[in-house]
């Protein structure tokens, strides 16, 4: 409403905290398309659209699921002994309407979306799109929402939850457990179920097709991650610390990744820079509010180097983690989560080993990591097996050779030399209109020498 209520525009009752939540939610939202570019540029040219579509499908499905029952699964009272909250207490978000809780829920849904989207990088170039759509719906409902509730809500790992009372409450400020380890484990399970791409490890066509797109994607991720990490800051000082760590961690991890490459392969690469940025962001995610900037440098440099080494392992064990979801998100997610056991600065009565907090926190972090691994691993396996048996996970060998974009979406990404490719790419629209009995005008007049 650009001009009408000029006075009201000025007298809005938003507080600064609300404004920041609104902005941060927008920033986190923007990460999913950023991820689509990051992943899309890394696939081969004949799979980029399918890759991006998996992120877009996550946006579509999780967006709607959230309004229907997902929002309720985060906001309600615990059911099933703290495993989740009642999905139908706030169906259609109705109980949140007109309250500030709706804004918190807005912020939360963006995390659900990107977590699902993250998984897709592991199954590039070979997944059935329809199955993916169903997977996003089921997985976000059975795995993500409960886990987020356990870690951040009043669920199992909260102060009063069953596990929280035994192992203590883990530190996971912005999603090392609930987002990155969670997505990484789910990716690992899907890889085992779907199998390697045809030609994996041999076909050099599987190199990234568009590296500037990858770098752009990583930049959008970084930009959005300031909202991801700092969105829940509750004081100025905390926001400033998180912002600082969210800048310096990817910077340090990038340098570590590039150095690793320089030593191992002789060259520092742009794909390495983009990957290092993401590894650093992943590693600092759980820790962003609980380490000093120097701690962030240390933690993320280790993560960057570990992930740089991890991404090469897939060839050795012949595990086609196509875009390295495990190598980057699982490995750096674990590094960040566990490193807190050493590097966490004292707060709320907990501190890392290096700050004299003893080994307790490390134990809590390890226990939580293990729990997420088991919870996500088992449930994703069940979901994956059912889908494999019913809809099928994988496209046919023939479709894979032709390309997933063409066979799943009937599209190809680029037509850059248009006179020629255009003419090559086909004929006039053969069936421009649905349900028309008459011969389509264009096709009929194709022979004209107009």
């Amino acid at each position, binding site marked *: 409403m650009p001009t009408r209520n000029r006075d009201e525009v000025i007298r809005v009752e938003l507080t600064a905290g609300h404004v920041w939540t609104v902005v941060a939610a927008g920033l986190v939202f923007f990460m999913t398309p950023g991820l689509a570019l990051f992943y899309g540029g890394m696939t081969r040219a004949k799979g980029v659209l399918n890759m991006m579509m998996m992120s877009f499908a996550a946006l579509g499905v999780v967006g709607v699921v959230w309004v229907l029952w997902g929002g309720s699964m985060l906001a309600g009272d615990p059911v099933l002994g703290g495993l989740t909250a009642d999905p139908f207490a706030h169906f259609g978000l109705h109980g949140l309407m007109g309250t500030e809780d709706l804004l918190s829920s807005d912020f939360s849904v963006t995390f659900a979306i990107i977590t699902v989207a993250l998984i897709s990088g592991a199954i590039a170039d070979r997944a059935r799109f329809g199955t993916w759509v169903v997977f996003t719906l089921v997985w976000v409902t059975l795995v993500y929402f409960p886990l987020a509730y356990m870690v951040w809500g009043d669920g199992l790992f909260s102060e009063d939850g069953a596990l929280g009372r035994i192992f203590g409450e883990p530190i996971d400020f912005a999603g090392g457990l609930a987002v990155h380890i969670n997505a990484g484990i789910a990716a690992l399970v899907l890889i085992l179920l779907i199998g390697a791409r045809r030609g994996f490890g041999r076909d050099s066509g599987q190199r990234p097709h568009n590296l500037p797109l990858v770098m752009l994607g990583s930049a959008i991720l970084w930009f959005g991650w300031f909202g991801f990490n700092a969105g829940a800051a509750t004081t100025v000082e905390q926001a400033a610390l998180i912002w600082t760590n969210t800048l310096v961690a990817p910077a340090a991890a990038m340098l570590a990744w590039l150095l690793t490459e320089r030593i191992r392969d002789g060259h520092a690469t742009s794909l390495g820079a983009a990957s290092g940025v993401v590894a650093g962001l992943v590693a600092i995610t759980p820790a962003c509010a609980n380490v000093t900037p120097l701690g962030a440098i240390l933690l993320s440099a280790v993560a960057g180097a570990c992930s740089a080494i991890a991404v090469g392992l897939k060839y050795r064990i012949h595990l086609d983690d196509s875009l390295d979801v495990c190598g980057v998100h699982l490995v750096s997610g674990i590094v960040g989560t566990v490193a807190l056991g050493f590097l966490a600065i004292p707060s709320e009565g907990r501190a890392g080993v290096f700050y004299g907090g003893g080994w307790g926190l490390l134990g809590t972090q390890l226990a939580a990591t293990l729990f997420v691994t088991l919870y996500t691993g088992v449930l994703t396996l069940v979901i994956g097996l059912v889908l494999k048996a019913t809809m099928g996970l994988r496209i046919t060998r023939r479709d894979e050779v032709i390309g997933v974009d063409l066979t799943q979406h009937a599209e190809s990404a680029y037509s850059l*030399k248009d*006179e*020629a*490719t255009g*003419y*090559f790419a086909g004929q006039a629209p053969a069936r421009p209109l649905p349900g028309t009995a008459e011969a389509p005008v264009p096709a009929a007049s*194709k*022979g004209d*020498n107009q």
Partner: protein
Amino acid sequence: MKLITAVVRPEKFSDVKDALESYGVQGMTVLTVHGYGRQRGHREVYRGAEYTVDLLEKVRIETVVEDGEVQDLVDVIVTSARTGEPGDGKVWVTPVENTVRVSTGELGDVAL
């Protein structure tokens, strides 16, 4: 057998292809090339620096045909590709000693 190679304007390619199809040509191989000839190029300007582009986009068609069809097919191509302006392109014919269809191993005219 002969190999007919034709270099034509991109915007006429569609017409040439239709004409060859109507005539009954079984196969052809096409690609985009850049041609230099009598036709004037255009110029592009980037931050004030001017570039004269004298290699222009063309489509190159090659089709291997039986000896008896060469004359007709060249006519079909020339007719369908012509605008009458310089830059319409060239057609040339070269001898082919043998042809194999990969899928079946058939040789000669039957492989076309």
